[in-house]
């Protein structure tokens, strides 16, 4: 098990390094002079500077040296928690992210919780109904949830719950109440996918021989469904939750704008728009790290959830 853990962690680090490298390549080697962009964000014009000043500015922003040297320097700094300085935000990138991260973590966390409750709840319900017509109808419904654009859904929910019913605030970062609508909006896509997966899983499980055995033992329909079919069908959802967490955080980019929240998603969106390279690089690295960590956690959870899976034997 230790060996598996070590190899899996090494893999995770490799993925992280890959994500960082690709982000660096895309951002720094894009056409256009990163120095001109950085200077512009700081309110200066590269054309107005003398060659000596340009060289000085290049050193100041860490843009001197070859791209490879810069890459290693940035990586070294990032490993020490120094993600550079955002010229247009007038703040160190690490500070910006630390300020914004709690908002996005709360939103993402609640959205994941919502999506599990909604997705599993709905999937379970849909597989439990006896009427074949209703069951088919319910089984088709998640496809609708997958195809709803989240910004549109967000605006719709704002109109219903904030402007028409007045139950929840439409926007802002003011506490738990302001988190419910954005988290729900963000959760629906993942929830629909979990529901689809669970409905299919339960359907497949219901044809398995052990289900027949369970019925033969005299268990009720509810008991068979929950104890035998559900436990088997739910396992793939765990994998998917790990993957969906990544989507949830990228979805935060849209949701945070619609709901006027200040999180990492909006920080990333604005940083991309003004080509604030240090911020984009830090956000990409951070989300990649989160993604890798969650998926590592999911992998390690498997043997606990399903004793038949044993990582040690593979290693």
């Amino acid at each position: 098990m230790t060996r598996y853990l070590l190899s899996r962690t090494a893999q995770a680090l490799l993925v992280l390094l890959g994500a960082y490298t690709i982000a660096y390549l895309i951002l720094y080697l894009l056409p256009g002079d990163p120095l001109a962009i950085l200077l512009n964000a700081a309110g200066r014009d590269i054309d107005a500077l003398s060659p000596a000043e340009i060289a000085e500015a290049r050193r100041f922003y860490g843009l001197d040296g070859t791209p490879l040297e810069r890459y290693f320097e940035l990586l070294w700094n990032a490993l020490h928690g120094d993600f550079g300085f955002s010229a247009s935000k007038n703040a160190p990138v690490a500070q910006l992210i630390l300020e914004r991260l709690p908002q996005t973590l709360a939103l993402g966390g609640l959205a994941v919780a919502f999506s599990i409750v909604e997705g599993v709840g709905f999937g379970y319900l849909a597989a439990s109904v006896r009427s074949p017509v209703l069951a088919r109808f319910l089984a088709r419904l998640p496809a609708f949830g997958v195809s709803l654009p989240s910004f549109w859904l967000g605006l719709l929910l704002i109109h219903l719950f904030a402007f028409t019913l007045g139950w929840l605030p439409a926007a802002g970062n003011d506490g738990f109440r302001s988190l419910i609508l954005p988290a729900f909006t963000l959760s629906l896509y993942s929830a629909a996918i979990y529901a689809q997966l669970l409905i299919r899983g339960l359907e497949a499980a219901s044809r398995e021989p052990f289900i027949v055995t369970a019925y033969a033992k005299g268990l009720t329909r509810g008991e068979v469904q929950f104890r035998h079919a559900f436990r088997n069908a739910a396992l793939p959802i765990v994998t998917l939750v790990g993957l969906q967490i990544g989507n949830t955080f990228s979805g935060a980019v849209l949701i945070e704008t619609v709901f006027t929240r200040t999180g990492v998603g909006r920080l990333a969106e604005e940083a991309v728009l003004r080509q604030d390279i240090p911020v984009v690089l830090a956000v990409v690295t951070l989300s990649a790290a989160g993604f890798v960590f969650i998926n590592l956690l999911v992998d390690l959870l498997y043997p606990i959830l399903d004793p038949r899976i044993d990582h040690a034997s593979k290693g």
Partner: protein
Amino acid sequence: MKVLRRCFIRMFRRRAASATIVALSALTFVAASREQASGAGSRATTLRIAFNADNPLLTSLDPFQVYWIEHRVVLRNVVESLTDQDPATGKIIPWLAESWETGADGASYLFKLREGVTFSNGEPLDAEAVKTAFDADKAFLATSPGAFGAAFLEGYDHAEVIDPHRIRIVLSKPNAGFLQATSTTTLAILAPESYKRSAKERSLGAIIGTGPFVLASYTPDVGLELVRRKGYGWASHAVDNGGEAYLDRIEVRYVPEASVRNGQFTLGETDILWPRDPFSEADIRVFKGKGAAIASRSLPGPAYNLYPNVAAGRPLADPGLRKALQKSIDRTSYARTVYSDDFPVVQGVLDATTPYFKSEKEKLAYDPEGAARLLEAAGWTLGKDRYRYKNGKRLSLLYVLWTKETAGDLLLQDQLRKVGIELKLSFLVPGEMITALSAGKYDLVALYLTRGDPIALQSVLDPRFAPTGSRAAARNVFPPEIGPAAEKLFDAGLVATRGDDRARAYGELQDLLIDNNLAFPLFERVWQTALTGKVSGFAWTAEGFATLSSVRRTP
């Protein structure tokens, strides 16, 4: 759907939060309780303003660096200037300086300061403080030559303190716009303490002024809070209420999503709705239905103009094509369609509220037939696809846009299609825009600046003065044969000390831009706010900002 909805509603009503939800959301409770602790107190006299998103490019409240007009509205109520500009006449009137004399050469100004004025930290406003402010701005400019305040401080050399209440500002060369500059937020006088802090700290809110409100907090992208300054009493004559503000607090929120912003307003969660773009006819109808009033003012400075890239090899280097383009734009239907029936139709290069504005209405008449004739004569013939071609090449113009298009951009595209010109919209993020402008890879770009003096034209179009970002575009506006003449007019406007001379110089400059079709006005930059029925006393300043000390809000 009904079942689903009932399901959701029930879910929320019960607040059916599972243990997991509670655990995961513990983080937000911390943030929440902190938010709710503040602000509960004096609801009755708190005014809530909703603006569009905060400046995405530059986080700064430092008056000397700020170009973002929403920030300038706020600053106008926190920091004050030597002079004020009368919103009705555009004349410069006393404020922190009760009188002044202009030197015979137009290169020095002797200001006599009003006595008894203090900054909100208790420091007195005296000649030393004014000198500190001007010198600090000059020092900042030395480190950051592209800063917004550069054009306002143009020519400032040094200040001589004559006695505690008299100061002479000496310019190294005449600058006719300087007196107006002393009335702007850009050259506002901050307390000496503010200049002991770094420019970065000032950007993040270390702003101490003499105004009727004090900046209590600023959270970039979220909002800011102003509180009433006790003992205030030195407003300029342009302001109705000369004493302390009627409001206790002002809460400003940045709300990027228009429908959310509008919804909050109609629900009464916002008292003043103040987006960047004018309202649509439909919005106005909804707001008025809720008892709201709409206040409008054209922002002084250039109108919303498109400027051509006339560099050799680009299609708009051809004067005939520029003329045809000018004739192809239907400005009346632009104002009516995109905005509303009573929206003013743009009449010239400048907005009508700018001093020395000259109407060029006749020259900007819509004349699609005339445009077609010009194009026909120049050899651009209509192809099967209704676009014009010459030597097998389609007549196509590249219009670079900041991030996204508006309804107006699409309408313009449609208007040009009618005469056979293809307008390609190219959406660029700010970083790409800088690259595109410096490389000259565009045909049309929109630039503007808000300032209550025609000198604003120089800041936009004169490459010697244009700020960072638009300098490259300014270089591409004038063909080599017209550039020197334009430069001469810019200089004449800058050094003229008599009103008549300025009127002549800027009148000729406006003519030059329209006669040579080097500016394509699209619409008057009208700023609109919607005010709930509870708000009264709202008044615009000359530069299209607002004095909030006269505003009252009934509970």
